[in-house]
Each structure stands twice: as C-alpha cells, then as structure tokens.
C-alpha cells in the first residue's frame, strides 16, 4: 500500500502537481499496559461483586482481549437489521477478507449503534482506546477505515472520535466520551442520550458470549446469585421504581412480589418480545445487538421469583433476533450459565423461544398466554392477573424485553444509582424509536422526563417550525401537538397519549391528522381479535366513517358519532387493544378538532387527502421546463406553446392526484391546494 502511495506521489511530482503529504505511519502508537490488565477484578469492583466465579473471570479475560485488544486495532461493523439493509454486509465481507489484517486488525460484526440514519456504521478502535466512527460508509471512506486500523491514526472521513475514559475499560457507551467530532449533527445525536440499557449495542459482538462478559455481562447475575437472596433482589427492584416498558407502566418490582408470594411453586417468567407497534423497534434492536443482556435480565427475574422455566415470546417477523437469541441461549447453556445447577448453585433455569403467529393482539399478555398453550390468541378478562394465575394457571411474570434489559443494570449499580436519571414517578432511562419527518431517525435512549424538544430538535435534528404533531406510543398511543412537555409516564398520559412501547413518530406540517388517524384505526380494526363486538365491528364502523370523511363524503353530525362511538369502544372492550385502539382518534379530536371540521367542509388543511386537493402552478417560480407536462401519466397538464408559465393548465377532472408533477418539479412550483376555486 505504501508503494502505491509513493507511486502516486511520484506521478504527481512528474506532472507538476503539488505534493500530497499523508499522515505518517510513525510514530508508533503508545503502548498501554493493557496486556497485563486483569479485567475481572476491575469489573467486579465496579459492580460490587466480592467473589468472582472462575468461569466469569476466564471468559471476561477472553472477551476483553477481543473488545479492547492491547496491540491490535478492532473494526466493528454494525450488522443489525438496519445495517444489513444499508448494505453493511458488503463492507464487512471486504474488511474481514483482508489478508494484511492478520495479527494487526480484528474485524467483528456488532449490533446497532442507534444512529440508524447513518448506517452502515463502522467503528475502528485503536489500541490507545479511541473509537473512530465512520458513518454512511461507502467506497469513499473504505481506505480511510483501513488506514485508521493499520496506522492507528484517524483518517479523513471519520464522523466522530470517541475516547474511553479509562483506556482499556469498555463496559458500554457510558465509558466513552467524545474527543473530536467532524460531524456536529452526529455528535448531537449522542450527546443528549444516556445509554445504559443499550450501552453495549453497537460495541460488542452479539454472538459472542465472552465479549458480553468482557463488557461486564453476567456479573450482575453472579452478584444476585451469590450475594443476594431472591427477596433482596425483588426489594432492590421495588426500590428502583422501574416501571414496565411495554406500555402500561406497571411497577416491575410489584409484579415480581405478587408472583413470588404465590403459594404455587411452579413459577414462570416470560419475556414479551412480540413488538408489533408500527415504528417501534426497541426490542428488536436490543435482541439483535445485545441478546445476552435480555437473557441476564430473565435469569435475574427467574432467580428473584423462584422460576425454573422461562420463555421468550418472539415476534414472527424478527428472524435475525430469533436466531441471535437462540444462539445466545445455546452459548450460555454450553458455558454453564443456563441449565441445571447454574454455576454450582441450586438454581436451575431453562429458557425457551416461542415464535408468535404474527397477530398484533398476541402481544397482549393474556392472549399471549393463550397462544403459548396452543389456543387462538384471544384475551381473557383480568383479574386474575397472570402474575398470580398465568400460564397453565401458574404464577407468571410477563415483562417486556426492555424492562428485563434494565434489570442487570439495576442489580449491578443499585436502585439509588438507577433513580439518578428520570424523575420520581418515572425513574431511569427509556429507549425511544425516533422516526417520521426527522433528518436523523434512530434508536435512542434518554432519561425519562427529558423535554420532548430535546429529542426532536437536538437528537432528531428537526427544525421546530416544521413539526406539527407527535405520535407517541404507536397505534394505541396518541397524536399530540408539538409543544413543550416532559417525556415521562404521567406527563404523557396527562396529555392523552400513552408512553406505550416507545415509538415516537414526528409529523411535519404536510401530514393530515385525519388521514393518519384513519390509517391507524384501519390497522387496529384489522388487528382486533374479533371477540368484542364493539372492538371488531365498532372499529370497522369508525374506519368507514373516517374513510368517508377523508373522501369528502362527510355528513353533518358525523364527528359527534366518531367521538361517542370511540368512547364506547374504549369503555366496552375487554383488553388493552380495544381500550386504547381509539386513542389516536380521541386525542386528535381533542387537539385537532378544527381539522375534522375542515374535512367535513371539504378542505384538508394539510393538503394531503387526495379527494380534497387540486394542483396549481406558482407562475412566478416556473421556468417553463415542461418537466411536469412530460411526467404526468394521464396527460392532465396541457401547455400552450409560446405563453411561458401562464400556458400551463391543469385538467382537474382528469388528474389522478398521483403527485408526480409536484415531486418532479425542480423549483417546487407545483403545489397541492385544498379548498378554493379550481383554476
């Protein structure tokens, strides 16, 4: 490679071009005394574990050598679903196949760092404890990555350089600080986050048990198993005030107490990974990027409530997460962390993976239990709650994957430390999936109680004036106007939305809330299990009414029917699906009622509903390029030659509202207009 450089330099000199100086390969990187570092005592001191089980100590050393190699560079390519979709697999193949990396660079595939918009993401760790992050990796930075790894000096094209606070110790994203940023938007994405639960995501190889242990994994489990009684673990959870991350926000510690106090000794733990909300992928990313953390959470929960069997109920559509969790389970079993008499104690646990059949309602806990026993996924009335009588009548703790992933952190650092983030009612951090009309969508973890503006503007990078509304908590959450409010359980429910699982969809000014509500109600009407008449036929009725409203067929009095039918469905449905299915409708009726009234009058204020719009040309901007004229598939645009911009005429009856003309116009002069005279 150096020969190549010389050749290039010589050629340039011959041609009389200025000489390019490359960053010299020397001086050699400073050598840190990492080879001698004994990581297990450091980790156990940090987590408050007194006696380290020899198995963990050994695996931690192995993992640490892979994670923070003392004299080699490490390239981590993000290969979660988002990375694969962006084509990261190609770069991984190219880098992993390099022969000149032998004994110099190790190439590993990792999970998702969270900045989904920047995929493919590549992290190059140099032996001095610096992480050079390259985003949107393409052929332009391919050589920069290779040179950074070989020469241990940051090359052009890196978006950000992170430094390990104590070089050689990496137990998650919290151990990193930003040293240099060449891409301020990318740094902003991380600065406002507090990555605890997702700390390992994008840093460790999800398929490697040693790497997880090397980053401090299973130390919390060992601490619980050897140095705490089950009662103490449950008490710690209660003290932490952790609330369920799946939707309703029930206190996790309380749920465990109920199950642990049951007379029935056959107790079961189930991790609910049937994540069906459109736009939410917290659980998927956690399972793909850090499956062992989920397992560790399940193991601690099982120890606390005295369960001997546990299940992970997975969504059918997550093949990568299923295969990674299956592998994680078999790795843990092979290492003796799962199975009979774990680590020589009397505690035994086996974990099974069950794949859901692919209905939204199966994520509801009682209907999930029905599915596990081979029945149709239909909820049953509660009480009895599953924590006292669940799977086959045994006490069953059902926790969301994200809730369980919080558990090792709480056991490791204590309830007190957990409460340092968040506020009294909603302690800790929460993972959100920021999607919609933001320049930087992604998977983020922020303290609960954070101002929503920080999420949307600083992390997401949206300009505040473009944002119209937020959809919080998926199709069962609510649509609320964009304003200042804190993201915590009570504040979000006080504005009529629901924290839900953590989907956060940003809607800009061109989105019609009535149309969106119609879309969400249709989703819920299709996904209702059909048991309750009001949920099944009532939602279908609502969907018809909304489709009439968006199709300019509204009738007077319709909005009142929408509102009281919505309340009836919420009040008379058996499970949380029906009770919350109308939340988008009720919140938009509360916050955007004028848009409903406008639709009744035949005007869509956002100019999004096709039945109510027509297209106009802003003549002052038009350059007479005829792009729209050529693109129109139905020839609804006619041009009178010689008249310039004024010669463009729309045939509104012929127009099919495909919006091709508006999209193709280079000067944005074709605009959709709702209401007013059709010219």
């Amino acid at each position, binding site marked *: 490679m150096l020969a190549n450089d010389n050749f290039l330099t010589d050629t340039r000199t011959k041609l009389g071009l200025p000489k390019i100086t490359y960053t010299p390969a020397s001086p050699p990187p400073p050598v840190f005394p990492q080879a001698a570092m004994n990581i297990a005592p450091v980790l156990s001191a940090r987590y408050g574990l007194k006696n380290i089980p020899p198995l963990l100590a050994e695996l931690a050393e192995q993992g640490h050598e892979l994670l923070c190699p003392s004299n080699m560079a490490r390239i981590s390519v993000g290969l979660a679903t988002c990375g694969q979709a962006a084509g990261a697999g190609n770069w991984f193949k190219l880098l992993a196949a390099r022969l000149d990396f032998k004994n110099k660079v190790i190439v590993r595939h990792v999970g998702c760092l969270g900045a989904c918009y920047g995929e493919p993401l590549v992290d190059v760790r140099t032996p001095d404890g610096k992480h050079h992050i390259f985003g949107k990796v393409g052929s332009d930075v391919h050589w920069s990555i290779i040179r950074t790894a070989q020469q241990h000096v940051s090359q052009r094209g890196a978006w950000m350089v992170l430094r390990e606070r104590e070089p050689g110790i990496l137990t998650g994203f919290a151990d990193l600080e930003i040293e240099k940023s060449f891409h301020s938007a990318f740094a902003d994405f991380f600065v406002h986050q507090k990555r605890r639960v997702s700390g390992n995501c994008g840093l460790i190889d999800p398929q490697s048990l040693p790497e997880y242990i090397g980053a401090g994994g299973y130390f919390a489990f060992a601490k619980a198993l050897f140095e705490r009684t089950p009662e103490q673990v449950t008490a710690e959870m209660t003290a932490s005030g952790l609330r369920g991350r799946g939707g309703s926000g029930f206190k996790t510690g309380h749920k465990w107490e109920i199950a642990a106090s049951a007379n029935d000794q056959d107790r079961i733990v189930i991790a609910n990974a049937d994540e069906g909300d459109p736009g939410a992928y917290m659980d998927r990313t956690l399972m793909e990027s850090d499956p062992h953390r989920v397992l560790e959470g399940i193991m601690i929960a099982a120890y606390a409530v005295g369960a001997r069997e546990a299940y992970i109920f997975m969504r059918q559509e997550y093949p990568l997460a299923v295969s990674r969790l299956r592998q994680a389970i078999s790795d843990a079993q092979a290492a003796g962390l799962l199975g009979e008499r774990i680590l020589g104690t009397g505690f035994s646990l086996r974990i099974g993976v069950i794949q859901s059949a692919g*209905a939204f*309602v199966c994520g509801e806990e009682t209907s999930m239990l029905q599915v596990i026993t081979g029945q*149709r996924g*239909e909820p049953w*009335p509660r009480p009895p709650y599953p924590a006292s009588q669940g799977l086959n009548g045994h006490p069953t703790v059902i926790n969301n994957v994200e809730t369980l992933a919080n558990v090792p952190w709480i056991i490791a650092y204590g309830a007190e430390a957990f409460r340092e983030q968040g506020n009294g009612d909603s302690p800790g951090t929460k993972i959100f999936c920021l999607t919609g009309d933001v320049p930087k969508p992604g998977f983020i973890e922020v303290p609960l109680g954070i101002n929503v503006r920080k999420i949307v503007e600083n992390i997401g990078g949206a300009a505040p004036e473009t944002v119209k509304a937020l959809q919080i908590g998926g199709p069962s959450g609510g649509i609320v106007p964009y304003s200042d409010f804190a993201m915590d359980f009570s504040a979000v429910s006080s504005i009529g939305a629901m924290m839900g699982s953590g989907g956060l969809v940003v809607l800009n000014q061109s989105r019609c809330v009535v149309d969106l509500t119609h879309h969400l109600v249709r989703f819920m*009407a*299709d*996904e*209702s*299990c*059909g*048991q*309750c*008449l*009001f949920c*099944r*036929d*009532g*939602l*279908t*009725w609502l969907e*018809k*009414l909304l489709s009439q409203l968006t199709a300019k067929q509204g*009738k007077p*009095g*319709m909005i009142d*029917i929408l509102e009281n*039918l919505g309340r*009836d469905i919420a*009040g*008379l449905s*058996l499970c949380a699906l029906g009770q919350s299915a109308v939340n988008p409708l009720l919140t938009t009726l509360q916050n955007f009622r004028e848009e409903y009234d406008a639709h009744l009058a035949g005007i869509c204020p956002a100019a999004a509903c096709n039945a109510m719009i027509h297209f106009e040309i802003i003549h002052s901007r038009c350059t007479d390029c005829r792009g729209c004229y050529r693109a129109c598939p139905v020839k609804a645009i006619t041009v009178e030659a010689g008249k310039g911009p004024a010669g463009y005429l729309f045939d509104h009856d012929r127009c099919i509202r495909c919006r091709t003309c508006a999209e193709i116009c280079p000067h944005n002069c074709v605009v959709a207009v709702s209401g007013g005279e059709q010219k």
Partner: protein
Amino acid sequence: MKDEIRIIIDDLVLNAEVGMPLLSLLKEWKIDIPTLCYHSQLGPLHRCSLCIVEVRRSGEWKAKHACMLACTSGLEIRTISSDIHRLRARAARILLTRGPFAKPSVEIILHRILSAAKAAGIPDDSQFLPIEIPEESISKDLLDQDPTAQMRQQGCVLCGQCVEMCKKTGNNFLTFLGRGNKLRISYVNTAATCGKCRACSHVCPTGYIHSTGQAAFAAKLYR
C-alpha cells in the same frame, strides 16, 4: 361451597357466590337482560355485547358487559339507564347489519332493544352505519348470489356458541378463523363428515346453522 356475598342490582339486594359471572346471576334471577351469546350450559362468551349494565365505581356509573363481570363484595350495578339504552341500541344496530336472520326471534330481540331506546329518547344513528341494515324481505336466493354476503357470513352474529358447543361435545371441529372484520367461523376437520350430532344447530340463535356445522361453515373456509 363458596362464600356468599350480597350485591346490589337496581336497588335490590341479592345473594351471590364470589367469582360467579354476573350474567349467570342475572339470568338465574330472571332479570331482563338481552343476550344472544349466552347459554346456561356454556357460560359467558363475551361475544354479542348486548348484556350491557352499569357498574358503580368510585361514585360513577360505568357501562360494562355483565358477562365480563364477576360477583365481588360490594358490587353495585343497575340495568336501566339512558346510556345503557344508547349502547345496547348501538350494539343491536351493528348486529342487525349482519342480518337478515333465518330465525325471526333474533330480529324481535334486537328491534325490541331499538324501540326501547327510541322510547327513552335516544337519537337514531343508523344513517351513519357502515352497511345498511338489510331488509327482511331479502330472499335467501339473493343472498346466495352475493359473494360478499357469504364471505361476511351474513346471517350469523358470530356468537361462538356453536364453537363452544362443538368443543364441549369433544369434536372440536368448529373454530374462529381470521381476525378483525374478517373474523368468521369455520369447519376444520379432515374427516369426511362431522358426525351430524347437530348440537351446534340447536344452540345457534340465528338459525344460520340449519342442518350441521359442516354444511354451514365448510364451504366458506378461506373464501
């Protein structure tokens, strides 16, 4: 013997067993509650949505289904109010859109609810219904020609009594299939016949199953 408790229904104080479904108690005491999916031998099925009553919770009356409530100490319910009339009428209209029904008794029950609601001054919302309530005069032949009507299982209210009954006989040949507005009942059995015990047709409130479950549902699988 379970504990006896006292619950209040329309200012009447009644004795009940803890955990007993409220609907069973109401039926036992012959209190007038319209239902289409209740059968004393099958228990509550939570399907027809007609058994709406109001429960007093922290001073407020909340509409609930009697079939989903269990008798607990201190339970206080009422069976007549204008909101109950409104909700039952709404449920009845939705059910009527699934008609016409082979047995007139269903329509009599539903129309009685509607006229009671009308007498209570509840406004008619039928003009907003997604599907028009079919006229009783639609002949069976016409129904057979309309493929969408067959797909919707027009004439069946999806009360699920046949499914439950078939399960109870030990055959378990009938099941709900699909979800949402595509929910339907289907006959799933690899054997040639279902045995013709006709238990399902005896419990069917609408007369949709006129001979056997197989005849009523087999042809409509995956339509």
